[in-house]
């Protein structure tokens, strides 16, 4: 166990430099990705990466450092950096090094079958996916992105309080974005899958869906500006939820960056809204038995039937609020300092299919994608105004496709306007955040 030995050496050096409790977090990863364009290999990537994050207390204050050059030569750099960072740390609440939880719920994020898929098969998959898309319709002119990737990651955590934890996961993803053209009008369609079960990867399905999405919008046009009843696609809803998810962090609340401040045990959403943080969701990209500080993860309802039940905590925020950590300490990578983030977070599904939800709508819009989430959405105010496309619904049926419109509203208000969730959770590309399709009372649409 080479990293454990290195960690011991780092701890010894830290001790000599006057540091108190210390922790080492190491991650190792392998990645493969093939991109195809016009039936040729357009990109082919192999990677082997590792990095080491260090943190430790100096005179009671926490300092961080990291290195990608994992060797004994880096020890001085790590200690010196962390010590300097601890000295300037004037924060009134400090991180702590954790001694470990009593019990951890084991998770399994490894699928050994995935290792048996050869590089040749992966290349063939990507080639086939593009070929099928191009063959489906003559209006499909090119693939903008066509790729298949697989990877493996392992993280290890060691600290001077005797904690020694590790977790590993493998994954695969396929992404297809196609461009359709007709009479000088362009439209693109996108589809992807992330899973470590390669048997779920189907080129017909991916190509079919991406092509349909592109073709559907070749003859799209705006609708009149006004307020519309909305069905928000699960993927779009997951995107919004991901962008706003920091408002559930206790840290954001403490820092006055969440309008949920002071709303614990109050109604913050419609009755149909139950928001779950589920670290054990099978196949979830954030599935884990321990969090970034080594605290055991737990399943919880953040919002239950519209009532805000808890914020998300790490050790620092929970100490401030005199509660237990909810196991939501985040450590995006060895480069990150400890923060707070959800695990697999999703709205609890309802019972109806999308078709059933549509069938009961007189007039409205089914919105399939939201553009510009990083710019047109202010998670602090909750205001959003986003470019979007979708379908006009009339008399319970899809009437035509719609594009070049914006949809706007406020997320806090929208939580109260949610009327119904469909039955299937859809996870967004960022992984971890999901939502079923959701019916919303109204949103403002700008079009013609």
């Amino acid at each position, binding site marked *: 166990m080479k990293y454990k030995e290195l960690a011991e050496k780092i701890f010894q050096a830290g001790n000599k430099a006057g540091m108190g409790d210390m922790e080492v977090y190491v991650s190792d990863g392998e990645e493969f990705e093939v991109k195809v364009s*016009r039936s040729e*290999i*357009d*990109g*082919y*990537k*192999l*990677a*082997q*990466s590792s990095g080491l994050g260090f943190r430790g207390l100096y005179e009671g204050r926490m*300092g*961080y*450092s*990291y*290195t*990608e*050059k*994992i060797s004994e030569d*880096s020890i001085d750099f790590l200690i010196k*950096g962390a010590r*300097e*960072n601890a*000295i*300037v*740390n*004037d*924060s*009134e609440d400090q991180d702590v090094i954790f001694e470990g939880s009593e019990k951890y719920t084991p998770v399994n994020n490894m699928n050994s079958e995935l290792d048996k898929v050869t590089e040749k098969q992966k290349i063939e998959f990507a080639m086939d996916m593009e070929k099928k898309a191009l063959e489906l319709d003559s209006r499909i*002119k*090119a693939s*903008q992105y066509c790729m298949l990737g697989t990877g493996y990651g392992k993280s290890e955590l060691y600290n001077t309080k005797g904690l020694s934890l590790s977790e590993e996961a493998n994954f695969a993803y396929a992404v297809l974005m196609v*461009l359709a053209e007709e009479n000088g009008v*362009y439209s*693109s369609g996108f589809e992807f899958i992330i899973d470590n079960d390669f048997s779920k990867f189907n080129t017909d399905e991916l190509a079919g869906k991406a092509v349909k999405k592109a073709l559907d919008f070749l003859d799209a046009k705006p609708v009149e*500006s006004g307020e519309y009843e909305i069905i928000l696609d699960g993927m779009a809803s997951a995107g919004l939820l991901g962008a706003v998810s920091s408002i559930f962090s206790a840290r954001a609340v403490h*820092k*006055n*960056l969440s*309008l949920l401040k002071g709303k614990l045990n109050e109604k913050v959403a419609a009755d149909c809204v139950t928001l779950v943080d589920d670290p054990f969701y099978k196949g979830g990209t954030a599935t884990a038995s321990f969090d970034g500080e080594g605290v055991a993860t737990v399943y919880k309802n953040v919002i239950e039937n519209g009532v805000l039940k808890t914020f998300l905590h790490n050790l620092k925020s929970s100490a401030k609020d005199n509660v237990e950590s909810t196991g939501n300490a985040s450590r995006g990578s060895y480069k990150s*300092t400890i923060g707070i983030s959800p695990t697999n977070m999703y709205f609890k599904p309802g019972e109806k299919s999308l078709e059933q939800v549509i069938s009961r709508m007189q007039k409205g819009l089914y919105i399939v994608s939201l*553009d*510009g989430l*990083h*710019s*047109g959405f*202010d998670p*602090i*105010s909750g*205001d959003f*105004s*986003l*470019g979007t496309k979708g379908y006009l619904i009339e008399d319970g049926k899809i009437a035509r496709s719609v594009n*070049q*419109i*914006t*949809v*706007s*509203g406020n997320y806090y208000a929208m939580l109260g306007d949610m009327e119904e969730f469909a039955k299937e959770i859809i996870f967004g590309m960022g992984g971890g955040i999901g939502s079923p399709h959701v019916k919303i009372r109204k949103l*403002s649409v*700008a079009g013609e």
Partner: protein
Amino acid sequence: MISKGIITSVLEAAVSTGGDFAELFIEDSSRSSINYLDGQLESTQTGRDFGVGIRIFCGMQCIYAYTNSFDKDSLVETALKAAQAIKGANQAEVMVLNETTTNGIHVIDIMPDTVGKSDKLDIVRTAYNAAMEYDSIIKQVSSRYADSVRHVAIANTEGLYREDTRVYTRLMLNAVAEKDGQMQTGTVNPGTHGGYEFIRGLDLKDLGRRAAGTAVVMANAEYCKAGVMPVVIDNAFGGVIFHEACGHGLEATAVAKGTSVFAGKIGERVAPEVVTAIDDGTLPNEWGSANMDDEGSDTKRNVLIEKGILKGYLIDRFNGMKMGMEATGSSRRESYRYAPTSRMSNTFIDNGENTKEELISSVDFGLYAKYMGGGSVNPGTGEFNFSVREGYMIRNGKIAEPVRGATLIGKGPDVLRKIDMVADNLDMDQGMCGSASGSIPANVGQPAVRVSSITVGGR
């Protein structure tokens, strides 16, 4: 960083299965960051990034591999593993490495990794206070600082060996105003491809006022009403519209695949005569500049559109081979983790002949976008969206009430054709541009421009 002897062995391994070209990108960087929030340190980090990227061409095939290993055996093994993906007939001869220096346009006085954390923290704190003190409705300020000193070396089978040191320093200030339970934000993010002297030269009080000023104005603004109208987009970050809506479509990554709306249009009119657009990676110490690109070629000033006529694309070596065109010194990557590809550097619409006042007074009813927020675009369809960070209505040729929540949407080529007036107040601003080869520093810029008609989203 890594000896030339080892580099040669790795290049030899990389072409051992018949590759016709191979390249190594070696990076050893130090990074430092501070996040100051709520009157105290939120987090600070010091780190070292180290890695090696290996790129192999075989005809029109490109293989990329990277590793954090640094010893000869691991590097050769990585190269051999990558080489397994190809079988070529024109194995490149590995030429003797001939070290050349860069032109060194970008002068660095104070290396930020020689400045202590407490000095940096003082700057961050002063900026924080300036924003916080601006107005009583400012409830929160995040003041962040980041620097990186990136030592890179590029070597290839043609005997090229070049080293460069890229130094980036940046201050990022974000202010939150709260009024009637609603929050609004304002931000300024000055940055440079330069040393710590840039930070020492900043007017922190003024930056604080600017970030907080937008937040306060927006907190007191009503929502923008949606509609189609003329829009005057002011200078500096306003250039994000050209960057997103047109610039990405001029990158060879999109052009070579034929998925750009600008593909095959060199020499054609794509904009009115008032529009000239340039990408210039040589501007001294600008955020998107570098001495050389990430293939080891000198950066250049590239005219993209001249008086409305499409003149050129931004081209990297690999896509240049596909397109049969010369590379333009535009190959960039976030780090050793990415194969380089054609990217923008400092991209801007050049000065026109009108004044900003003339643009405003020409509009009876429309929107004045003083500061733009970010946006995104689909390079295939040209569809884009941008948020307006600080906007005002224009009524009867005068700037009227502020409006919040405005978004601009449209299609790049359409909007480009609708730029009908260009002012003379060119300025640039700093952003991070995300695309195929990762997130890289890029300047956007323009003088104030008038777009005759655009869809404004609001409520």
